[in-house]
């Protein structure tokens, strides 16, 4: 009897606790839906680091900051390949005949968002001086901007300003009113830039890049070091909440001047409904929310629950979403989810350190490794047969891509040829090739499996390898200090110019620069110097392709793949068109609130 009383007491207590817990926790899970606001729900798999444009390095920070800050020019949302159009600029820049002077007129009546840093909290009008001030911040060594290298040796007097900042004792001593010959503002709406030599990437690199967007001096001075979390821009959205590492919320900027939705696009855009909003004033959304979700499972669940508007397909959920590449499962179709194929301007490879005594002077060895890798098998195993095989450096999505690249280089899978080359390599080396060490930038299951695949392929042709898995910073340090022998890495385009990819092989950019291969070829360098002052033209394209062939012949890397992805989009997410540069795109997007509400009902039925 006593025993039973004890059991009953404990059982009742547990039941009450559990009931209260579940009851309290499952109330009102979706307050967003009840507010009636148009909310864009996104996520990032990694946290963003800063809202100060001059400190941005990662694509996620760029993506968020580009909704708050604006640049002189932007890429047309619908036209492909990328076309630059004015944003803060009144019109396209005017260049002098010698291409050394660039004049830009900016729009009148553009205001910074309201913020307490301004007198009475009212945002003031944007002036060209703000652009100069923001560029000076990048040059000021006290700000430790990682983006200075883009400007080095490009603008008259800019390097001297940087030298001057080095001589200042502290950040407070830097005089921002100090003139720079190459950055002049004859009036509040005219910016004149004088270049040391022609710089074809000026507009892409400086005028369409959020990292050089104008910031208000008042904000920088008011917030000091905390400017990283207090962005004050001219864009369509303003920061409402930033819970570092977990949540970002932007709301519509009530002071935003408004911008019409594009009225023209590519063939097929009108049929896809992408021109339905032509001429309407943007932005459409009231709020944008980004959750930071590092694990795929919760992000996938949130997407299926309708709490994210779009999501790439996780590897583990591929069969739930797709029956074959390009074909959705019945479940996805019943949920009215649509599929978008995205082709990324990226290339991934195994890089060879040319300073390494074993690899650097042994081309047959590098060729053998190239021939030993089954790239198609690799893509099939790891990327659901979706990625493109990389035969060269420049990705197919770039206009400079060489359609004949497949016939060049050594990217075919040919283990027999690889074995013969190994024998040749051993003769050059004077004996058996020592164990080759391959560095990977992660320790997760993916990198272990990736490493095993590469190891198996290379060892099958008579070479020995050792996998060296490490975290990203260690990897970076090893590669930057030329310690890594072979390294698995990749890169994406920052601008629509293939120079971004070719610069990885320019000898002046050897490690710790982007030339992690420490590759040197005087002919390549000569062509690089020549093309670096050429505008986009068929001649430059030919030279780019010639440079790519030089690299492929010298074989400082085994190119593996170009990233291609599938994104699932909910039916309510409208005006979605993938752009390789995901900057400032949220203003174009809208939500069909009716469809979103209906989805919940649909989901209940399907569940």
């Amino acid at each position, binding site marked *: 009897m006593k025993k039973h009383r004890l059991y009953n007491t404990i059982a009742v207590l547990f039941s009450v606790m559990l009931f209260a817990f579940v009851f309290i*926790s499952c109330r009102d899970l979706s307050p967003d839906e009840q507010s009636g606001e148009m909310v864009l729900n996104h996520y990032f798999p990694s946290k963003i680091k800063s809202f100060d444009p001059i400190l941005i390095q990662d694509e996620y920070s760029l993506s968020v900051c580009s909704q708050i800050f604006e640049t002189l020019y932007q890429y047309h949302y619908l036209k492909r390949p990328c076309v630059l159009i004015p944003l803060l600029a009144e019109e396209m820049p005017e260049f002098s005949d010698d291409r050394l002077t660039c004049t830009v007129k900016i729009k009148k009546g553009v205001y910074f968002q309201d913020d307490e840093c301004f007198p009475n909290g009212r945002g003031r009008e944007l002036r060209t001086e703000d652009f100069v001030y923001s560029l000076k911040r990048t040059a000021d060594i006290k700000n430790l901007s990682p983006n200075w290298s883009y400007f080095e040796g490009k603008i008259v007097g800019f390097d001297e300003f940087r030298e001057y900042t080095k001589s200042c004792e502290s950040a407070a001593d830097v005089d921002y009113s100090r003139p720079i010959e190459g950055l002049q503002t004859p009036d509040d709406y005219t910016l004149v830039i004088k270049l040391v030599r022609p710089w074809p990437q000026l507009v892409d690199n400086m005028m369409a890049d959020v990292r050089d967007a104008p910031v208000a001096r008042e904000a920088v001075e008011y917030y000091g070091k905390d400017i990283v979390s207090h962005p004050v821009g001219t864009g369509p959205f303003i920061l409402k909440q930033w819970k570092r590492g977990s949540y970002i919320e932007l709301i519509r900027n009530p002071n935003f001047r408004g911008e019409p939705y594009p009225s023209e696009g590519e063939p097929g855009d009108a049929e896809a409904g992408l021109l339905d909003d032509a001429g309407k004033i943007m932005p459409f959304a009231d709020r944008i929310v980004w959750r930071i979700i590092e694990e795929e499972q919760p992000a996938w669940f949130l997407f299926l629950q309708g709490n994210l508007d779009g999501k790439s397909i996780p590897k583990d959920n591929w069969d739930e979403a797709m029956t074959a590449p390009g074909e959705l499962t019945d479940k996805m179709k019943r949920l009215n989810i649509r599929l978008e194929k995205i082709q990324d301007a990226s290339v991934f490879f195994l890089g060879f350190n040319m300073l390494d005594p074993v690899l650097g002077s042994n081309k047959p060895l590098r060729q053998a490794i190239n021939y030993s890798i089954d790239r198609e098998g690799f893509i099939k195993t790891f990327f659901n047969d979706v990625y493109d095989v990389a035969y060269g450096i420049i990705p197919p999505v770039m206009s400079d891509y060489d359609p004949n690249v497949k016939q060049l280089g050594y990217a075919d899978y040919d283990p027999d040829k690889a074995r013969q080359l190994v024998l040749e390599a051993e003769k050059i080396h004077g004996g058996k090739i020592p164990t080759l060490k391959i560095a990977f930038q992660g320790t997760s299951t993916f990198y272990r499996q990736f490493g095993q695949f590469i190891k198996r392929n290379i060892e099958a042709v008579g070479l020995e390898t050792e996998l060296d898995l490490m*975290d990203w910073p260690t990897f970076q340090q090893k590669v930057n200090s030329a310690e890594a022998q072979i390294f698995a890495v990749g890169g994406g385009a920052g601008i629509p110019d293939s120079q971004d990819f070719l610069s990885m092989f320019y000898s002046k950019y050897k490690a710790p620069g982007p030339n992690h291969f420490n590759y040197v070829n005087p002919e390549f360098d000569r062509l690089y110097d020549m093309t670096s002052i050429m505008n986009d033209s068929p001649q430059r394209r030919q030279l780019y392709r010639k440079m790519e062939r030089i690299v492929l012949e010298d074989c400082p890397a085994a190119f593996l793949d170009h990233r291609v992805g599938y994104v699932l989009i909910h039916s309510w997410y409208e005006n979605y068109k993938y752009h390789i540069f995901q900057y400032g795109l949220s203003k174009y997007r809208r939500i069909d609130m009716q469809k979103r509400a209906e989805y919940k009902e649909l989901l209940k039925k399907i569940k």
Partner: protein
Amino acid sequence: MTVYIIRRLLYTIPIVLGVLLLTFVLFTLVGGDISVELAGKNATPETIEEIREEYGLNKPLFLSWDSQFINHFKSALTFDFGRARDREPVIDKIKRGAGPSLALMVPMFIGIIVISVSLSLVVAFVRGTVWDVLTVIICVAGMSIPYLSFILFGQYFFAYKWGLFPVFFSPDLSTVQYVALPVLIGIVTSLGSNLRFYRTVMLDEMRSDYVRTAFAKGLTTRRVLFKHVLKNAMIPIITRVVMAIPFLFLGSLLLERFFGIPGLGYLMIEAIGSRDYFVINAMTYISAILFVVFNVITDICYAWVDPRVSFD
């Protein structure tokens, strides 16, 4: 007792100094120079040098009043850990993360103790019966299943499939809402090992002569269990419980990561991943201090619950 506490607190000084020295050696000498990483892609040597200046990495390591070690020591003592790699003050990060971590860990911790100690009393009381065997089997099974499986399973069924809980953190949710499921999962996963431990402790006590004597004297089951058995089992319980408290501060890495709880477990692992020594150093130091302090509290508690333990 005051003398005892003071003496124990004095003992902690060399321990804390040791921790400071160890973290300095690990992060500064073994970890290497982080200025190149901080400088980013294509950084010039001048930028790298400027970063070294900004973070004091160009100062002598030990032999100077302005050495890196002395500065490390000063910053630890004043709890001024400087700014993290993303330029946010480290202390702000810790303050922000402590709330969500504790909101997750404290109810989980209390839940685990209350449930496992209560159940262990019951199981020990019915030792040898089918209920006892069944409990042990469930405990062993629970211990054998990986932690991650509980999380994946719990998130799939309870949050996604049945919609009883939110899948992921959102600032719109109240603390109870976003920690509810992780807490439940945390309790269930830890119950096996805790219950087995406390059951063993309780069984040792139940077999003692004084228990038989108490029953022989006609005391009620509740009185025997809660007044005598539980009190005598307090030493191992206190050791386990009090020493676990400092770890509550570190949060739970997997639960925080899967449920998006912006706590200190998440912060710590992110700091390790990005080699943010400023954060790692601060977290290690604070954890060490908490550990030392709770060690002292454990010793004091022993004397409280067991009159045989003397402060001398």
